[in-house]
C-alpha cells in the first residue's frame, strides 16, 4: 500500500489531505491517529476507492486506484476488509447471516460459503452466538461480528476506522488483541483511533495526521510532545 504526493480537495474547496506520502509494507500493523477532521476518514476512503485522489498516486496491492475502472472496484474491496466504529450490521440477520452476506452478494458458490463463515466466526470466537441477532449481542460481540465479516473474504488488508470508539476499555482491549492476532496471521492492519492508551502501550508504527498532512510517522506513543 503506497501513497505518493496525495492531495484530496473536495468540491467545496476543502483540502482534506495535502501531499501525503505513505508506504505500508505487507504484514504491517499501523495506527492512524490525529484529531477529528485531520483527514483520517478521507485517507480510508481513498484506500477503498470510495473517493479518488485529486493529485498524486494511491496504490493498493499493486493497483493504481486513480486509473482503476469503476467495474473493477468491487474486486478491490473484496481484498480489503473494513470495520467501523458503528459496526454496520444488518439488524434482521443473524450473526451467521451477517457474515455470510458478504460472500452471498459477491457471488460466492454456496458450498464454499459455509466453511468460510464457520472459519471466520471461529477466528473471532463467536461460534456459539451464530444464531443470535445483533441486538442480542454485547457491543464487543457486535464488533467481532463485523470483524468476522471483514475477514470472511480472506483480505490482505484490514482497515479499522475507530473500531473501539463505542466500546469500554476492557472490551476495546479484546478487539485490539483480535486485530493483532489477525495481523500475526499475515494480514496488514491499519487502525484509525483516538485511543492514546492503546497506541502508547503497543509501541507499533504510528502515523499522525494533522490538517491533512502527515506530521509524524514512527514507532512509538500517541503524542510525542507530551
Amino acid at each position, binding site marked *: 500500500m503506497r501513497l505518493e504526493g496525495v492531495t484530496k480537495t473536495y468540491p467545496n474547496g476543502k483540502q482534506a489531505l495535502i501531499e501525503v506520502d505513505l508506504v505500508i509494507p505487507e504484514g504491517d500493523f499501523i495506527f492512524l491517529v490525529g484529531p477529528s477532521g485531520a483527514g483520517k476518514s478521507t485517507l480510508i476512503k481513498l484506500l477503498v476507492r470510495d473517493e479518488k485522489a485529486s493529485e498524486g498516486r494511491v496504490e493498493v496491492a499493486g493497483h493504481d486506484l486513480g486509473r482503476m475502472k469503476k467495474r473493477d472496484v468491487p474486486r478491490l474491496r473484496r481484498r480489503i476488509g473494513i470495520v467501523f466504529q458503528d459496526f454496520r450490521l444488518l439488524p434482521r440477520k443473524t450473526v451467521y447471516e451477517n457474515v455470510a452476506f458478504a460472500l452471498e*452478494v*459477491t*457471488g460466492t458458490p454456496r458450498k464454499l460459503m459455509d466453511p468460510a463463515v464457520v472459519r471466520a466466526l471461529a477466528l473471532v470466537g463467536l461460534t456459539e452466538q451464530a444464531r443470535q441477532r445483533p441486538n442480542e449481542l454485547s457491543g464487543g460481540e457486535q464488533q467481532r461480528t463485523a470483524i468476522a465479516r471483514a475477514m470472511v473474504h480472506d483480505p490482505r488488508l484490514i482497515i479499522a476506522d475507530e473500531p473501539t470508539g463505542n466500546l469500554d476499555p476492557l472490551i476495546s482491549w479484546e478487539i485490539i488483541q483480535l486485530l493483532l492476532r489477525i495481523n500475526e496471521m499475515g494480514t496488514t492492519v491499519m487502525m484509525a483511533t483516538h485511543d492514546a492508551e492503546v497506541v502508547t502501550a503497543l509501541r507499533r508504527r504510528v502515523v499522525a495526521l494533522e490538517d491533512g498532512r502527515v506530521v509524524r510517522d514512527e514507532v512509538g506513543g500517541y503524542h510525542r510532545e507530551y
Partner: protein
Amino acid sequence: MHFLRFSVRQSLQGLWRNRVMNIAATVTMILMLLMLAALVILISGVESGLEYVESKVEVTAELHDGVLEERIAELQTRVEALAEVASVTYTSKEEALAAFLAARKAEGQDTSVYTGLNNPLPAYLTVELRNPRESGAVTEILRAETGLVRFVPDQQTGIDKLVSLTSQLRNLGVVVLGFAGLTVLLIVINSIRMALMARAQEIEIMRLVGASDRYVRWPFILEGVFIGITGAVITLLLLLVASPPISDLASDIAGSVPLGFDSSLTLQIMGIVLGAGLGLGGLGAWISVRTYLR
C-alpha cells in the same frame, strides 16, 4: 443461478417490506392497463365496424322516369368502363317495386295496401366499386348526367365521419393513456425509491464488501418488473371475467356487424397488456435505480 436466486429473494423481501406503496403502484398499474385494453377493444371494434360498412358501399343513382332505355344502357356501359368500378346493375321501376313489396312481406306486413297505387319508386343503377373509398369520382360523373339521373345519395360523408371519429378516438385515447402511463411510471419510480431508501444501509454494506453493481441493482429492477407483471396478470384476469358481458353488449349495440372480438384480438390484448406492464415496471425501476443509486 446464484445471482438470480439472490435477486429474486431480495426483491420479494423488498416488495413485502414496502407493501403499502407497492400495492398502490400495482393498483394504479391495473387501472391504466384496463384503460389501455378498453381503448384497444374499442378501436378494434369501431375499425371492424368501419370495414364492414365500407365493404357494403355502393353508389346508387336514381333515374328520372320515362327516359329512353338506350340512354340508360349507354350510361351503364360508360360507367362500367371506369377503372374503379367493379360492376353496374340496372334495376327497373317494376323490379324496384317488386323488391320493396318482397321486403315488406318478409317483415310480415300486409302488402295489399300498396296495390292500385302508382309506382312511386324510381329505376336505378347500382355501381359496385373495386375500392369502397373511391366513390367520389363515380358519384360526380353520375351527378353530371342531370338529364338522366335524378339523385345520387351521398355515401362518402357518412364514411368520412366514421373515419374521422375513429382517428379522433384514437388520438384522445393516446393522450389519456400517455398521461396515465406517465402517472404509473412516476409511482413506480417513487415506490422503488422508497425501497432503495429502506435498504440504504444494506446497499452501503454490499458496496463495502465488494458486491458488484448487478447484485446491488437487479433486486430493485426486479421489484419494478414484479409490480408490472402482477398488474398485467390481474388486469388480464379482470378482462377474462368481464369479456363475456362486454361481448354481449357489443353484439347488442352493433347487431349484425361482426365485431372483431376474436382470438387474434385476445392475443393482441394479452401481448399489449403484458408488454406495457412489464415495460413500465422495469423502466420505472431502472430510472429510479439510475437516479437514486449513485
